[in-house]
């Protein structure tokens, strides 16, 4: 088989898929020992998975009440042939209308979307790749504010050959991306002969959980207009905004910018987060550029949405009453869950970045670090996975430039599990707080499973532990962790 690898492509044999990142140690630990409230209460709780599991009941209820929407019921089977046969890459007109309608509602009706600009893709994963194929050539680059979704490395660059140029943001201004930072990154790239084709932003942000304010968004639109580069706004979390400030989409801001070149503006959307249906693989590219819509449609052949799913979702998302109720209820439940979680953390002195969207918090554990380094972040992370038994995502995997931040997901579990997780965190941090020890080799932790004395138990890490041991091993994953890394 060794000689065979020479017969495969570079893409097939390089690391562009990004799955060898340390990031996936957490998944391995979870897969080996997954938490279950009754069968395995000491298992690892999965908090690295940005899923929205809070509102399935609403969808299930709708499906039960609308048997015609499924081609598999007595009421709906008449449509079986038409649906099963339909592979037009334009998608069902009703489906495009439904998506445009849903996107509009998620933006409070402040923007309307043209169904003829809705292009299908294989999930947001497929949509992001498709947009890159349309906008950039191999070797071109896109600016991406950090911290960013780890799988961008794969989605934007693996098969397209497009490079990511990070625009580093930090806590000094709550990780907001500034025009100045963009200009600096752009100039630096140009000086290094890197051809910047555009800027990609995730709004609401993953992993920060924040939305861009109107002013900042406007300045970004002005920036790309000035430089004549593209703006891709990944808005897959737009329907998860649960508190103020309200979400401002790039579509709203376009009107405000004088002489805005609409051909530069593109939106990536999906139902995976807002509706919690990643399994149905609904990715959307919405572009204001006709050529991109045209080309994108042809490319969508490589990842069309199953007609069975289009059919179901068309009916569901054209039901205005359902959509309004869903968005409102989902938002309320996310707000409540976010509140419970952040309050619980605050009680033990852990702060999170103030956020108003997303399915996760950006947790500040800087004061628990032995020192402000990524090595220390990794050490802490291993403790959290192996001792506290929570799979959380270290900031370094999002290319955060400041050590000590962790993304913690809260919407992929029930209330009881949230309580268990908080309890473990409370115990970990400990009543005595989290003072650094004098001994540089030791980190104070409290093992939740061991009997406690008055003093903290100490878990010692030999100073000789090599950095490489803490980073990625090379064993292949039995499951596919990357697709959960979102």
């Amino acid at each position, binding site marked *: *088989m060794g*000689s*065979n*690898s020479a*017969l*495969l*492509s570079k*893409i*097939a044999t390089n690391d562009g*898929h990004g*799955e060898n990142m340390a990031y996936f140690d957490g998944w391995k630990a979870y897969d080996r020992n997954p938490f279950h409230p009754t069968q395995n209460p000491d298992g690892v709780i999965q908090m690295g998975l940005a899923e929205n*599991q809070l509102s399935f009941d609403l969808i*299930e209820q709708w*499906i039960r009440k609308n*048997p015609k929407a*499924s081609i*598999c019921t007595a009421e709906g*089977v008449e449509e*079986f042939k038409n*649906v*099963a*046969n*339909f*592979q037009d890459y334009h998608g069902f007109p009703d489906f495009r209308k439904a998506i445009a309608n849903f996107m509009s509602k998620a933006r409070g009706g402040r923007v309307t979307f043209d169904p003829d600009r809705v292009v299908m893709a294989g*999930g947001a*994963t*497929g949509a992001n790749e498709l947009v890159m*194929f*349309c*906008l*950039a*050539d*191999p070797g*071109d680059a896109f600016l991406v504010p950090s911290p960013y979704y780890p799988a961008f490395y794969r989605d934007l660059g*693996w*098969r397209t050959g497009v490079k990511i140029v990070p625009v580093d943001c930090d806590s000094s201004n709550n990780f907001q991306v500034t025009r100045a930072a963009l200009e600096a990154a752009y100039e630096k790239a140009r000086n290094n002969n890197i051809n910047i084709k555009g800027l990609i932003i995730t709004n609401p942000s993953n992993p920060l959980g924040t939305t861009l304010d109107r002013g900042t968004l406007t300045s970004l639109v002005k920036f790309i207009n000035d430089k004549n580069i593209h703006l891709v706004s990944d808005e897959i979390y737009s329907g998860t905004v649960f508190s103020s400030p309200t979400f401002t989409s790039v579509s709203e801001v376009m009107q405000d910018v004088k002489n805005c070149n609409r*051909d530069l503006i593109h939106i990536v959307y999906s139902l*995976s987060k807002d509706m919690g*249906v*990643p*399994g*149905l*693989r609904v990715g959307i590219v919405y572009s204001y550029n006709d*050529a991109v819509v045209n*080309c994108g449609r*042809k*490319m969508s*052949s*490589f*990842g*069309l949405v*199953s*007609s*069975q*799913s289009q059919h*179901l979702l068309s009916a569901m998302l054209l039901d205005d009453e359902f959509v309004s109720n869903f968005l409102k209820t989902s938002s309320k439940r996310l707000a409540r869950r976010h509140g419970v979680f952040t309050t619980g953390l605050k009680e033990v002195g852990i702060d999170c970045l103030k956020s108003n969207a997303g399915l996760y918090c950006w947790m500040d554990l800087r004061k628990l670090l032995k020192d402000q380094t990524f090595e220390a972040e990794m050490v802490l992370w291993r403790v959290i996975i192996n001792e506290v038994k929570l799979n959380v995502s270290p900031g370094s995997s999002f290319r955060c430039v400041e050590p000590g931040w962790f993304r913690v997901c809260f919407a992929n579990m029930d209330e009881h599990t949230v309580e268990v997780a908080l309890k473990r965190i409370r115990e970990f941090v400990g009543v005595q707080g989290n003072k650094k020890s004098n001994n540089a080799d030791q980190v104070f932790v409290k093992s939740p499973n061991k009997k406690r004395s008055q003093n903290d138990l100490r878990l010692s890490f030999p100073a000789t532990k090599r950095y490489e041991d803490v980073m990625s091993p090379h064993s292949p994953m039995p*499951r*596919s962790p990357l*697709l*959960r890394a979102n």
Partner: protein
Amino acid sequence: MCMLSRKATCNSHGQDSSYFLGWQEYEKNPFHEVRNTKGIIQMGLAENQLCFDILKSWIANNPDAAGFKRNGESIFAELALFQDYHGIPEFKKALTEFMSEIRGNKVSFDPNHLVLAAGATSANETLMFCLANHGEAFLLPTPYYPGFDRDLKWRTGVEIIPIHCTSSNGFQITETALQEAYLEAQKRNLRVKGVLVTNPSNPLGTTMTRNELNMLVSFVDEKGIHLVSDEIYSGTAFSTPSFVSVMEILKERKCDENGSQVWKRVHVVYSLSKDLGLPGFRVGAIYSNDDMVVAAATKMSSFGLVSSQTQYLLAAMLSDKKLTKNYISENHKRLRQRQKKLVSGLQKAGISCLKGNAGLFCWVDMRHLLRSNTFEAEMELWKKIVYEVRLNISPGSSCHCTEPGWFRVCFANMSEETLDLAMQRLKAFVTEYYNVPEVNGHGQNSRLNHSRRRSLTKWVFRLSFDDRSPIPGR
């Protein structure tokens, strides 16, 4: 201003080819049995619409599987969340068993070597991304499916070098043609990474012979390259000779036992779009014995996973062996009958086809209707057939055929009545244009009418088409 990628602005997507132009014309004026009886009949679409009733009735009798339920309990949430690129295990198991059944259980497939993709379109592209670098080449026998220009080349940057096949031997692949194609690649400084064949063939509607398959395996073994066998029509082999999969050949040659490297270099592409008539569901698959290919393709499938809702429904359907057995045999029967109808209808119009035993189409010989043995004449004839006869059929040039005058005509995507009507129109057309009586009182008028009609037609054509050559690949 050109701000887009090269891929977005070139036309390697191949959609300017006549293959797709015919579809566009059809869309402007589609035939309907009631509402538009004068419209264009779609015979350019290789769809299998003959057995939906069987699937519909299965659904009616299996409400649980169909309704997101397991033992009466809703599993919607579980399905909605499932995005593991390894796929639902029950689905892959059922799919591999189905693939086996189609091959008369002469070969078996390991579900762990099966990678799901969003249709054969995605499967073929993914395989190219895995097997070839930008600028490398694959050899394909002509005529071939026009969509390959997009699927194999567009975003991957892979080149296609044709292996020229001709009617002199029923378009079978010869050793000479293979070697010539390989040499051609070398002349153009292109590194050949493999051969890709479609078996049963689109557009020929024939299955590959054992001879051809053995020759191909020996060829790729000798050259140390890959063989991709696109077997998406394997379940449509409705008459003898029976379908032989390349996997069977490998087994016969004991490739899996003798440690031969070629075992790992043969990959099969499958789909449910043709055999089961479910193109809308986007179910494609790659099967490979090479773990590295499986690993890489699995990761790539993230860009086009199969909807979990669809996997679940089909897992249940394909696990029902009574259904699959009945479906496979009914499908064969109905396809066979339908093909016979088309063939005899064509014969009545004095038109013959390549003897076919598979697929959803016939490879039709209209060389005798060409004004001259040229592709220009083929285009002229094609336009007449689209606009005057109002049948959308696919000209051989769009399939990269080296001989003018061949057309692919589909038969499984319409009702019997519509097929009858299509054949009537064709017969009328052939009679009118090619059996015009000689000069006499009556005949003179006819000839005049005929030539007047011809100039009118030319005028109409000039308005409809620009001068860009519809012949792709040039």
